[in-house]
C-alpha cells in the first residue's frame, strides 16, 4: 500500500491502534457481552504482533499478514467460527465476488451480528453494522469514521482489495483451551517467520526488532511508517500487559499460573515503557526525524531494550504453556 493512501489522525485510533482487534471486539460483543479489548487482543494474538519491513519500516507492516487464517484462528479462540472472503492483494472484487460479500454481510446483519471488513473509509479494519438496499449502502464504522459505504465501494477503497469476515457459528470454549491456544499463537508469532515469501523483507516476532534496528542502521526509515509501527506495537504491548493483569485474577485459583501471568504482565509493561519513549520522538502522523543519526542511535538502544524485555516475556509464555498443557 502506498503511504499517502493511509492518512489517519491520532484521535481516530482512540479505540486502540490495532484496528483488527477493535473490529473483532465490536463483532464479538454482539454474541458474547463479557469480552473487553485486552481479552480479545490477547486471545486472538493481536496483542503480541509485530511485523516490520527491514527495508524501511513501512506503514503496511501491521496489516501485512494472512488475514484469513489469522482472523479465523483468533476468532475460533473466542468461541466463534468465522467465514472469510478476500481478493488478492491490490485486486478489486469481480461483480460475483462483490455480490457474494454483500450477501455474506447482509446474512450476518440479519442474524444480528456486525461483519468485519477492510479499507472502507481508510485502509484499516472496521465493522459493517447495517444495510439499506434502497440506498444501496452499508452503515460502516472504522477508525476514519462512521458513515454510509455504498455497496459498490466494498473492496474499492484506497487500496482496492476486499476482505470480509462474518460469524458462522458460536460455541463454548473453556478458559484452559483459550489460554493454551493464545500462548501457542503468541509463541509461534514470536519465534517463527510467518511469511511465505522472502520479499518484502518482513520479519515478525522477536526478529521484527532486529529488522527494525537494521532499517535504522541503514538510515532508510519511513517517517510515517515508523511512527505508525511504534504506536501500534507499543499500544499492543500495553494491552498484552492488561490481558495478563486480568488473567492473573482469572486464574487466582492456580497459584503457579497466576504468578506467571503476573511476571508476563511485568515484562510486557517493560516492553511498552521502552517503546513509549520512542513515541515522543516519533509522533504520529508527522513522524519526526528517524534518519537523523542522533535519533537513530537512541532508537536502536531502545529497540534493543524492548527486544530483550520481549524475549523474557516470551520465555514466560513458554513456561506458562508448560503449566497449562
Amino acid at each position, binding site marked *: 500500500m502506498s503511504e499517502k493512501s493511509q492518512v489517519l489522525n491520532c484521535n481516530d485510533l482512540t479505540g486502540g491502534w490495532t484496528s483488527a482487534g477493535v473490529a473483532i471486539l465490536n463483532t464479538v460483543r454482539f454474541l458474547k457481552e463479557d469480552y473487553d479489548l485486552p481479552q480479545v487482543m490477547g486471545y486472538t494474538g493481536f496483542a503480541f504482533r509485530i511485523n516490520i519491513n527491514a527495508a524501511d519500516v513501512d506503514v503496511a507492516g501491521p496489516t501485512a499478514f494472512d488475514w484469513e487464517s489469522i482472523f479465523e484462528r483468533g476468532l475460533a479462540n473466542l468461541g466463534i467460527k468465522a467465514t472469510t472472503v478476500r481478493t488478492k492483494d491490490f485486486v478489486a472484487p469481480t461483480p460475483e465476488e462483490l455480490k457474494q460479500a454483500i450477501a455474506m454481510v*447482509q446474512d450476518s446483519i440479519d442474524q444480528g451480528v456486525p461483519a468485519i471488513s477492510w479499507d472502507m473509509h481508510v485502509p484499516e479494519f472496521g465493522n459493517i*453494522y447495517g444495510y439499506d438496499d*434502497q440506498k444501496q449502502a452499508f452503515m460502516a*464504522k472504522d477508525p476514519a469514521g462512521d458513515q454510509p459505504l455504498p455497496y459498490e465501494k466494498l473492496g474499492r477503497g484506497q487500496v482496492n482489495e476486499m476482505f470480509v469476515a462474518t460469524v458462522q457459528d458460536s460455541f463454548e470454549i473453556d478458559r484452559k483451551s483459550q489460554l493454551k491456544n493464545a500462548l501457542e499463537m503468541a509463541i509461534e508469532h514470536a519465534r517463527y517467520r510467518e511469511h511465505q515469501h522472502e520479499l518484502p523483507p518482513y520479519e515478525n516476532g522477536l526478529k521484527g526488532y532486529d529488522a527494525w534496528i537494521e532499517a535504522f542502521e541503514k538510515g532508510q526509515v519511513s517517517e510515517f511508517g515508523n511512527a505508525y509501527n511504534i504506536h501500534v506495537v507499543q499500544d499492543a504491548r500495553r494491552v498484552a500487559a492488561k490481558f495478563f493483569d486480568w488473567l492473573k485474577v482469572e486464574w487466582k485459583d492456580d497459584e503457579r499460573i497466576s504468578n506467571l501471568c503476573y511476571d508476563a504482565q511485568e515484562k510486557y509493561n517493560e516492553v511498552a515503557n521502552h517503546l513509549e519513549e520512542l513515541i515522543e520522538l516519533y509522533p504520529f502522523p508527522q513522524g519526526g526525524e528517524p534518519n537523523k543519526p542522533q535519533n537513530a542511535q537512541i532508537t536502536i538502544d531502545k529497540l534493543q531494550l524492548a527486544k530483550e524485555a520481549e524475549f523474557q516475556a516470551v520465555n514466560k509464555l513458554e513456561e506458562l504453556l508448560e503449566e497449562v498443557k
Partner: protein
Amino acid sequence: MLLEQSKAKEEQFIADLINDQALIARAKQGDPEAFGELVSRHRAKAYGWARKMTQDTYMAEDIVQEALLQAFLKISTLIDAEKFMAWFHRIVQNQGHMKLRRGGPYAHEQLFSGFATNNQEVDWSDIDHILFQLNQSIEHRPTNNPVEQLIRKETLQGVATLLNCLTAHERSIFEQFFFEQLSPKEIAELFEMKVSNIYNVISRSRNKLQRERIRVEVSDYIKERQNKGLSTKKVLDSSKLL
C-alpha cells in the same frame, strides 16, 4: 450400409458435442488447456467462415486469431454451453465486418483515420458519440465506392438502432466488448491521436465500464432480493461499537 454410416456420424457428432460442453465448462473456469483444445477444434471451421467473408488468406488468419482471443475473454460470460458454436460464429463474423468496414484487404487507403478529419473533439469513451461522428464523417467523405459507403452507413445505423434496443445491462456488455475489440493502435488510427493518450483514455474507459458493470450487477442483486421477499434494511445498535 448407408444407414449405418449415417448413424455412426450422428453418434460422433453427439460425442463431439458432449466433449465440447465439458471443455467449455472448464474453459469458463479459466482453464487454459480446455480453451486451447476448443481453439484447435474450432479453428479450422472458423478459418473457413472468415475466409469466405474476406477472400483473403492472411486477413482471415488474422481475424480468426483476434476472434479467438476475444472468445477467451468473453467465454466466462457464456451462459448456455450449447450456443457456443453459434456465438463463436457471430464473433468471427463481427471481426470480419470490422476489418471490412475498415476498407477490406485491398483498400488500405480507406483507413478509418479518414473519418475524423474535422476538428470537433471526439469523446470516444461514449459509444453514441462515436457512432454519431462516424456517421457524420461518412456523409461528408469523398468516395469512389458508393456501395461500400452505403454498407458502412447502414452498419453504423444498425449498431445505433441496436444500442437503443438493449437493456442497460446488455448495453454495458456491448460497450465493454466494443472497446475490447479495438486495439489502442487501431483507435489511434481511427482518431489520429497519440497511442499513449489512447492508453490513458482506454484505462479510464475500462474503469468506467467496470464500475458500470458493478453498478448494474448490484442493482440486479438487490432486485433479486426484493423478489425473494428478503428484508431491505436492517441496522444494528451502533452504540455498542468502539
